[in-house]
């Protein structure tokens, strides 16, 4: 009875558990530190377990619907509503489930790591409360099937993210970055809200599936589309709207940076959801135009990101630019899929593979980039500097961090047998059939990425022991555990890519392409 009712309410628990943990943390933290650590560890374990269980349910039994406030959780269309969903509905399909898996694994590893890396800082109650709120925002964004609800979770994740970026004031620099992030997020969210208003005023619906079934592609819809995709592209850090990423990622506490990567990927999810599930397959929707729009964003991000990364001196700033660059791969892969969405034979020949590569890259990127930011945090934890010119010789004293850094660096550069290779190979092969030039750009960017990380590796870990870092030891076990967890996932995805592609990626791509299924899950087949 209990188990089955928990299984039934998984989507609600996915939000409720981290929310409860967030607001009870200050209360429990008031008692003592050990209790708070246990509470936080318990909260994140429960959240991740719920997330993974929900994803498992989706991958085994299909789309899960959850109606808030209805007599029965599956009662999408109430008797007296006249055939429209009037309540907030969570629609967790395979693509959402994939994002939930990413968020669950990352959030778990990151929180375990934070328990130690932040243990000597003040204000921990607020820190964990905000961390859990950020998790709530991410989970809500990827699980919801309601446009206004999406806006609310977008704001929750932006607010929690900005507050966390500014949390360690750092002589004001971090607050400056936090303010920048908060301003841009607010502006973006207001654009999204106007778009929601435009859509609601025309179609009397906020539910994504209902909206999708009613869209006429009027002039107002086109404005709404622009107001939705530009802010979401900004939030995922695509060039030319990437300028906030280096500041924000570099100044946030390292564990938070890793979580901000996941949060920007939730925006990427929103972008794809709007393009494919909301607007895709409309008769008047020009696939080639929007496909090329996404492709150009992707190629610009890839190239500008990596060229800006090479001269950086601050290790986290450098990684932040690489994050921009890697986002480009996802946009490129999915953009190619979007460009050929109307052409069934091209879609089957290479479009779906390109999309699978792009979406596989989302999960891979979250894992290896999280790992890299955590190693950067470990280095900062022991040496107190992020400046590449001052670091050196740490390989002698921090062997585990070095190994994890190597795994992350090889994965981001797309070297087999790590996970970056698996997804990048899919992107190269399929994009080559679409446009050889784009594929060559993608490979060149990979080579530049490798070059950049070889330099970083050399200047941090190689060379003789430095006297100023004589006291630098290996980081505590919990931090190693957090990094090891992500490193193991990186290796698993790299060694057995086909298992994960068949199990998670292909269903996610199918869910994204099949707009009809997304609509009929709510409105019934018609």
């Amino acid at each position: 009875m209990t188990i089955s009712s928990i299984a039934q309410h998984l989507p609600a628990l996915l939000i409720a558990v981290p929310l409860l943990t967030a607001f009870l943390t200050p209360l429990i933290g008031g008692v003592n530190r050990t209790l708070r650590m246990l509470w936080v560890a318990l909260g994140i374990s429960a959240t991740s377990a719920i997330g993974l269980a929900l994803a498992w349910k989706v991958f085994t039994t299909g789309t899960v619907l959850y109606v808030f406030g209805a007599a029965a959780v599956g009662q999408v269309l109430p008797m007296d509503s006249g055939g429209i969903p009037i309540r907030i509905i969570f629609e967790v399909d395979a693509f959402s489930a994939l994002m939930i898996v990413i968020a669950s694994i990352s959030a778990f590893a990151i929180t375990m790591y934070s328990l130690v890396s932040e243990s000597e800082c003040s204000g921990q109650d607020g820190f964990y409360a905000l961390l859990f709120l950020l998790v709530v925002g991410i989970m809500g964004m990827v699980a919801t099937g309601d446009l206004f609800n999406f806006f609310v979770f977008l704001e929750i994740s932006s607010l929690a993210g900005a507050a966390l970026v500014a949390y360690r004031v750092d002589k004001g620099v971090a607050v400056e970055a936090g303010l920048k992030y908060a301003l841009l997020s607010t502006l973006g969210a207001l654009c999204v809200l106007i778009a929601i208003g435009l859509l609601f005023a025309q179609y009397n619906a906020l539910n994504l599936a209902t909206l999708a079934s009613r869209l006429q592609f009027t002039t107002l819809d086109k404005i709404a589309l622009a107001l939705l995709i530009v802010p979401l592209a900004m939030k995922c850090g695509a060039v030319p709207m990437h300028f906030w990423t280096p500041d924000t990622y570099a100044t946030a506490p390292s564990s938070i940076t890793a979580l901000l990567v996941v949060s920007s990927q939730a925006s990427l999810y929103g972008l794809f959801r709007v393009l494919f599930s909301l607007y895709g397959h409309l008769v008047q929707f020009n696939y080639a135009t929007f496909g090329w729009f996404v492709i150009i964003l992707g190629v610009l991000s890839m190239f500008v990101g990596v060229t800006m990364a090479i001269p950086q001196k601050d290790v986290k700033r450098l990684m932040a630019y690489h994050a921009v660059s890697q986002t480009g791969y996802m946009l490129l892969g999915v953009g190619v899929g979007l460009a050929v969405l109307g052409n069934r034979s091209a879609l089957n020949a290479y479009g779906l593979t390109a999309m699978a590569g792009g979406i596989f890259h989302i999960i891979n990127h979250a894992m290896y980039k999280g790992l890299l930011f955590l190693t950067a945090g470990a280095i900062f934890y022991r040496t107190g500097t992020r400046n590449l010119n001052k670091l050196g010789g740490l390989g002698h004293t921090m062997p585990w961090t070095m190994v994890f850094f190597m795994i992350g660096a090889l994965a981001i550069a797309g070297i087999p047998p790590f996970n970056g290779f698996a997804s990048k190979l899919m992107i190269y092969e399929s994009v080559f059939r679409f446009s050889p030039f784009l594929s060559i750009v993608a490979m060149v960017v990979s080579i530049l990425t490798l070059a950049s990380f070889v330099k970083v590796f050399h200047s941090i870990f190689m060379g003789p022991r430095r006297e100023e870092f004589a006291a630098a030891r290996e980081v505590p076990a919990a931090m190693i555990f957090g990094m090891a967890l992500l490193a193991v996932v990186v290796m698993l995805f790299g060694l057995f890519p086909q298992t994960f592609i068949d199990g998670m990626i292909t269903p996610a791509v199918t869910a994204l392409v099949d707009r009809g299924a997304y609509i009929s899950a709510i409105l019934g087949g018609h």
Partner: protein
Amino acid sequence: MLSKILINFPLIAVVLIAMMGLSAMVFKRNIVKILMGVTILESAVNLFLVATGYREGGIAPIFTNAPSTHMVLPTVQALTLTSIVIGVATSAMMLSFAMIIYKKYGTVDVRKIRKLKG
């Protein structure tokens, strides 16, 4: 002609207020004034939402007093309330950032606080 302007009056006001907010965000150098711009822009969006929900001669959805069951769907009003609450949280947080910046740098002029570069 006049009636057309009157019907669209709220929307014209929305555009004007939004322009005011945006121009404050873009042209002002004082962080507090930029944040005022954000708040003005938020008000414009809220007004837009409420304006889309207006029906001439509509009946407020209060079941006990309504003369018939045909009532205005109050969704946009609910959205606006949510949006106002979110706006308050955002403004409070950003103003507290401005306070800390003033404490640390002694100024709120964006031209003088640029420590982040590249």
